[in-house]
């Protein structure tokens, strides 16, 4: 090989060899299993942990009403449709009365008959009273005459007996009157009952609300308990939130909340925990709470999904590490502490956790300790590490 400038061949050969050896050595120690693990470290500092709970839920109405008949029947008419606002007491739908009108007429007639029976009984009492008065005066007269011996004792006795009979007839007539009155009251009650039943198949709005469903159309048959219409109070919409039981410590009524509706993910709306349900879901392992809007946003719909963040009172002046620095060793949680250039796994006790990833350390570390945050690989006690500012996240 011809070279344009003159250097001994040995030098060239040695140079190539040296370059190869240096490259080999450098690659062997900086990549592959022999290389030190790149890590980033941070110092434990005091600060504030803004704790919060987060869950998802659906918008639903605190008060919703199923409007339906109390007995099986056919729907005759439905007067409102979905979306209509209705007032309390407004007629919404009517069931087919079938024979109810006839039964009301029959009850009315029976009541009228009862009333005339009372009138008859009253007349009978009057009649009995007048008979009794006549019998009494006649009896008195004959008793006087009998004392003066103008008439025989048997005639006097007859008159006395007639008086007693008239008394009894009066009592009977009065009793008939009472019974007729009672009968009238019964028939009147029957009539009112029939009319109420007639009224009961008229389905009226119990409150001011909005119709949310029209489940039956005229002509369809519904059974007792089935709904013809559904109503809800638009002002009573709230969010039923489900929170993971494991991350629900501190949940209580009155916590301020941020509600983000799925239909408007950019805007968080203020609210408050209105109620925490006393029973949580054992299957999904979630707790259930209701969060009410401070002001109801317009256009919010029932069953819409919502993200809810509940803000708990923060913990200030706490020792903080990022949650990425927490490692699990078996069941033990701890951090990799870097002291005197050596790594040591230190078990810690954690406290409050913020949604931003800050974790309060209750026990195990002190301010100023240097802990490993990110590492390229799982660390071991004898791992060699190299501290860098940030780890390459390209691949």
């Amino acid at each position, binding site marked *: 090989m011809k070279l344009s400038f003159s250097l001994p061949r040995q030098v060239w050969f040695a140079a190539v060899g040296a370059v190869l050896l240096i490259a080999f050595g450098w690659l062997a120690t900086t990549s592959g299993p022999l290389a030190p693990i790149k890590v980033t470290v941070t110092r434990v500092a005091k600060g504030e942990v803004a704790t919060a709970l987060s869950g998802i839920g659906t918008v639903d109405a605190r008060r919703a009403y199923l409007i339906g008949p109390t007995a099986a029947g056919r729907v005759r008419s439905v007067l409102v449709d979905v979306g209509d606002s209705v007032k309390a007491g407004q007629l919404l739908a009517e069931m087919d009365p079938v024979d109810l009108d006839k039964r009301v007429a029959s009850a009315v007639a029976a009541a009228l008959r009862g009333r005339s029976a009372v009138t008859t009984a009253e007349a009978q009492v009057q009649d009995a009273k007048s008979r009794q008065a006549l019998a009494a005066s006649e009896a008195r007269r004959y008793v006087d005459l009998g004392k003066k011996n103008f008439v025989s004792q048997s005639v006097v006795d007859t008159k006395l007996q007639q008086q007693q009979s008239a008394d009894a007839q009066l009592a009977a007539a009065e009793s008939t009157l009472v019974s007729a009155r009672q009968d009238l009251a019964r028939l009147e009650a029957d009539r009112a009952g029939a009319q109420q039943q007639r009224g009961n198949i008229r389905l009226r709005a119990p409150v001011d609300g909005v119709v949310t469903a029209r489940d039956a159309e005229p002509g369809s048959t519904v059974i007792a*308990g089935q709904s013809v219409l559904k109503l809800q109070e638009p002002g009573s919409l709230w969010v039923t939130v489900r*929170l993971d039981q494991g991350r629900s410590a501190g949940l209580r009524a009155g916590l301020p909340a941020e509600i983000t509706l799925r239909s408007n993910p950019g805007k968080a709306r203020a609210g408050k925990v209105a109620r925490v349900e006393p029973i949580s879901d054992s*299957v999904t392992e979630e707790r259930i709470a209701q969060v009410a809007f401070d002001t109801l946003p317009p256009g919010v719909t029932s069953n819409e999904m919502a993200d809810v963040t509940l803000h708990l009172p923060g913990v200030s002046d706490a020792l903080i590490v990022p949650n990425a620095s927490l490692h699990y060793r078996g069941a033990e949680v701890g951090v990799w502490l870097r002291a005197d250039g050596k790594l040591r796994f230190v078990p810690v006790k954690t406290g409050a956790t913020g949604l931003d990833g800050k974790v309060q350390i209750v026990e195990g570390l002190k301010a100023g300790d240097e802990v490993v945050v990110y590492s390229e690989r799982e660390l071991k006690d004898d791992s060699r590490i190299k501290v860098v500012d940030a780890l390459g996240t390209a691949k």
Partner: protein
Amino acid sequence: MISLAGRDILHSWGKFVLTGLGLGLLIGVTFTMAGVYRGMVDDARVLLNNSGADLWVVQKDTLGPYAESSSIPDDVYRGILGLPGVAQAANVTYLTMQVRKGKTDVRAMVVGFEPGQPGEPGYLVAGRRITRGHYEAVADVMSHFSVGDRIRIRRHEYTVVGLTRRMVSSGGDPMVFIPLKDAQEAQFLKDNDAIVNSRARTAANPALNRPGVPGLLEAIVASQTSNHNVNAVLVRVAEGRSAERVARDIRRWKHLQAYTRAQMEDILIAKLIATAAKQIGMFLAILTVVSAAIVAFIIYTMTLGKIREIAVLKLIGARDRTIAGMILQQALGLGVIGFVVGKIAATVWGPAFPKYVLLLPEDAARGFVIVMLVCVLASTLAIRAALKIDPATAIGG
């Protein structure tokens, strides 16, 4: 005493180095192929390491959750926690699917895990761990997602809050970790059209939509759109307890299958990646043979190119040993250069591969021994040829 080999090499050092370089690149390819194979096995191993479990509890008579699909109710773990020797038990789901980000999508294994339990990524390289119960994700850097990205898994959008490394499925797909409940839903919940169709199908079934039973249809539809299944329960055995014994108890009393680490490794390496690994292994074997042959031929032709010089050496009375030594030393020198270049080349281009390439030092050592052996064998061929040379060719031509 002067080194004959050294003098000869220096005489045409450029040719020698270039031959060594070429040989090195070939050896580099062989090393890379070995690295691809090791990477494949390592992918399967890290999958097991990362889950941090001692036992995998899966559906009876399946090889789940990685090699076969497995589905068990999500309350099974409570019963397992009650067994003696169990320290931790956690539900986990695995689903390989396309994860969308904007218009692109990435093939990933979506893992549903519970925080603080086996199955959680052990370490991060950026961002933070998941703190919310829903719609947050930690992704492997291989997915090329970055912290703050919004990714779409089925019907929900997730925010990437952290990145991790070397968390891959046995197929080498990056993992995306999401909260368990979201994963259960993602695994099961279909698109809206399918849900609406399925509701209509249920409503059309007269046995399920009975006029006399209000609310029955709603209850059935609700039960159809919820999922209380997971793919496996990861169990961490209490210290000092035998995983095999706990696995036996689970198999016997819980009507589930339980695999220990060794069994799981066997399933993954012997069953799941067996064919692919054999494919690579076959290729590696052929490549090794071909490389050896090429090394042998190069050394042989190099020797044949020096017939005249060797004849002169013989003529001036050089002993056979001296000549053999020269050829052997040159062959070994070529081997050393080839090995170093090959190792450097493999290390440099290894990370550029889409799947993990693991270059083990012991593989390199083994490779070095093989290269040297091949060189020695090849030089014997050349030495035989050199010793047969008639010294007369030096003058006769």
